[in-house]
């Protein structure tokens, strides 16, 4: 028995070492990208390619952000995504609150929820053609506002389901107690429910931001100039150039990954829980 237990312990250690090695391997592409972004141009012609930059510099970052003016695209992305997040939060509360707190026929509730969920599975490419035509006739082509509008709509289904889940976790009795004390419905909502929902709202905001931040198809089709182009369009623009400049390409890649990863530092647990449909409920 003891022998088998010792055997078991050794086996576990081996597996754990393998898992850590696997994690490092999984992260290698990121490492390679960061390393490439820090290499000066001269280091791309040496063979074999070096793992670490010999003379690390932020030259590629400044030449792409300032020299190519990608800082404008970064600004566009931030403005568009933040605006979309605000709309998404407001609209998802408007939908989720009545569906969880007000007395509606159960069939209506599940019907609306299922319809909203089904929109999550609508491939954007199938509505992109008419949306392009509509945006053009409305004179909103190459304007950030059209992307804000679309990101709000396409981010909404996911957010509604998240907010709905968080709302269901707050007992209705808390608000009812406030009503008994004479508080109005809106007072109970803003002063009692909303503060309790704050962590969930934050997680919804982070995920909605990350989803809008990654969006590429609409941005590619509905923008043409730095007036409205988002950062992913800029990333793509560098990739499809005839002569590819490796360190600049890696630098834009690094920037586009760093932004959502930094956001994840806020409320990782809630984000994980939301990304995995609430399966992860670990206290960490």
């Amino acid at each position, binding site marked *: 028995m003891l022998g088998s237990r010792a055997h078991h312990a050794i086996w576990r250690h081996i597996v754990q070492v393998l*898992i850590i090695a696997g994690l490092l391997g999984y992260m290698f592409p990121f490492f390679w990208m960061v390393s490439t972004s820090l290499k000066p141009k001269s280091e791309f012609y040496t063979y074999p390619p070096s793992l670490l930059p010999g003379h690390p510099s932020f030259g590629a970052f400044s030449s792409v952000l300032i020299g190519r003016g990608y800082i404008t695209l970064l600004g566009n992305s931030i403005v568009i995504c933040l605006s979309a997040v605000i709309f998404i939060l407001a609209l998802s509360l408007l*939908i989720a609150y009545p569906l969880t707190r007000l*007395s509606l026929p159960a069939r209506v509730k599940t019907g609306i929820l299922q319809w909203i969920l089904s929109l999550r599975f609508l*491939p954007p490419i199938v509505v992109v*053609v*008419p949306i392009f035509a509509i945006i053009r006739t409305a004179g909103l082509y190459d304007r950030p506002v059209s992307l804000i509008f679309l990101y*709000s709509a396409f981010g909404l289904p996911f957010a509604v389901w998240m907010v709905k889940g968080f709302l269901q976790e707050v007992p209705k009795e808390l608000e009812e107690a406030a009503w008994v004390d004479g508080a109005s419905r809106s007072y109970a909502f803003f002063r009692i429910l909303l503060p309790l929902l704050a962590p969930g709202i934050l997680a919804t905001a982070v995920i909605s931001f990350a989803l809008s931040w990654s969006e590429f198809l609409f941005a590619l089709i509905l923008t043409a100039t730095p007036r409205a182009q988002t950062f992913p369009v800029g990333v793509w623009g560098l990739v499809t150039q005839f002569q590819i400049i490796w360190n600049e390409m*890696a630098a834009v890649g690094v920037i586009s*990954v760093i932004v959502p990863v930094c956001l994840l530092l806020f409320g990782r647990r809630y984000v*994980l829980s939301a990304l995995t449909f609430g399966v992860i409920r670990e206290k960490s």
Partner: protein
Amino acid sequence: MSLAIKGRQVAERKLAIYLLALPIAFLLSVTVYPLLHTISLSVHDFRTGAFVGTQNFLRAFNDPALVASVRVTVIYVCVAVLSEAVLGLLAAVVINRSVSSPLLRGLIYSVMIVPMVTPSVAAGVIARLIYIPGYGILNYVLRAAGIISRDVLWLSTPSSAMFCVLSVDIWQWTPFVFLVLFAGLTAVPRDIVEAALVDGASGVELFRYVELPFLKNLLLMVVMFRFADTFRVFDHVMALTGGGPGSATEFLSVYLYRIAFKFWNLNYAAAIAIFVVIVASILMYFLGKVLTSEVA
């Protein structure tokens, strides 16, 4: 039912309608209205604008490029979803059994979430830095290991280009399957596992009769999500191969994009879009069934 309660119910319904009206109208205007517009586009000619009925659809059925696109899309969806499901499930079971330290578990959660929030275009960039001839590190590693003697042109041979595009999807989304199932496994009651082990169940039997039944619904759900998302694959393909070489990685979205925004045949593109919607709806229908039994 007393009058007071009934009055409150009526008031609540009224409020619900006020609150829901604006966001639902908004969603309808961005999704359902464009869909109707797509249908109208699909039955008109793109040069004259005249009503042509099913002509665009008939053209779609006889379009070899569309057939090729459907073919590569099917291959892509099947290989990606299957690999992600198998690898994610395997990793979840193995890691759940061998890692108990909360620190290491926390580290795994943190690391695995990063690929999921990486913009797909950026994932395409990362893959380029690995596969591209010259600077790409993969050729160097394979040469150093003596597996190949000359650089492989990963992105310009049809079969390897498909492999490259698939590898990005699998790298980025296996963590999603893994995280859901890994978390799902923590819900398996400890005493059931122990009872099975006392009864002499082997590792495989434990998986087959205890863990798998617990994970079944979750697995079905993640597979449906991955199905829907691989079906619309676009971003990293554009950054990595642009649909090429030839049409080796010209998936439905990429083909539709080319017809609409390179050839500007919006009407034919609309007909293809309708076809895609029909297939997507069938998938959606099944997903709805799974989710209602799971969530509601």
